[in-house]
């Protein structure tokens, strides 16, 4: 009697790829639909403590604040600016001046830590110029993308025309 060798017979096993492809496409559609391109955003901190009677309450009484006056034309464009009466033609010049002021005086109880800036602007001045001014005085962007802080205490002067 002869036995057929069944163990040696191998059938090609076909994996049904259809469910996997279905799921993969579902996933892909989900990711495509939820994909949002949002530009990275950052914040500039402004501390406005309520302790004092007005917006211009000094943050720190030790040093007189630096005062940046920003003037605007009728269209809200920047017409001129001066830091403690010293005029500046560009934000870059202002930035270089602040870098020189702060120098290497850093760490606890340093000028960099205690310096405060009051922004005094015309009411019609556009917001972007204030952001430019804060950018110029608040930090330096190094080559490796790190931010070296300059003046951290920034506040707004009371609105012009307010008591």
């Amino acid at each position, binding site marked *: 009697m002869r036995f057929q060798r069944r163990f040696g017979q191998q059938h090609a096993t076909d994996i049904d790829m259809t469910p996997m492809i279905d799921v993969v496409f579902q996933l892909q559609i989900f990711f495509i639909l939820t994909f949002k391109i949002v530009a990275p955003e950052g914040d*500039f901190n402004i501390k406005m403590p309520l302790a004092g009677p007005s917006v211009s309450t000094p943050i720190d009484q030790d040093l007189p604040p630096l005062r940046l006056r920003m003037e605007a034309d009728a269209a809200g464009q920047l017409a001129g600016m001066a830091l403690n009466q010293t005029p500046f033609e560009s934000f870059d010049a202002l930035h270089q001046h602040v870098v020189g002021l702060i120098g290497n005086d850093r760490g606890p109880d340093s000028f960099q830590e205690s310096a405060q800036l009051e922004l005094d602007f015309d009411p019609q*001045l556009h917001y972007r110029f204030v952001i430019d001014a804060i950018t110029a005085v608040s930090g330096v962007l190094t080559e490796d993308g790190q931010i070296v802080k300059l003046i951290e205490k920034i506040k707004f002067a009371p609105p012009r025309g307010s008591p």
Partner: protein
Amino acid sequence: MRFRSPEIPDAEVDWTPMIDVTFQLISFFMFVINFTVAEVDQRVQLPSSPLAKPSEEVWEFPIFLHLTTSGTVVAGGAELALDEVKRFLLRETELLRYQDKSPDQANVIIRADSATPMELVQQLIQTCRDAKLENFHLRAKEEKSTRGNSPLGQ
């Protein structure tokens, strides 16, 4: 003479390259997906700054206020006039009190349009101060280029 028709082999689609590409795409989307709810509004075009880096710390109790050039504020999904913002803020501070928190622990994030007059920003800040809020963050979008020499009025 009889001719035999040539046997046509079964046509099989090779799925391998398509699955490869599909998996690559899924991997890409998985890496870039961001589940944080970004509070953005198309009506507001933020100014840009090279120092506006995304913050690593998450603000506690953020209150987003989008200020448009016309002086309306988009908050909580609704467009409000400046004098209506106070009611919205009172509701927010009431919610904070339910959580045993004080308004000074909240963080107001102001997203103002780059062409908004500062007068309106000041008014908005004053409205927030009236609601006992005192932590403010002025938002700007990150600028990739290095600081340029920005002459006045440009």
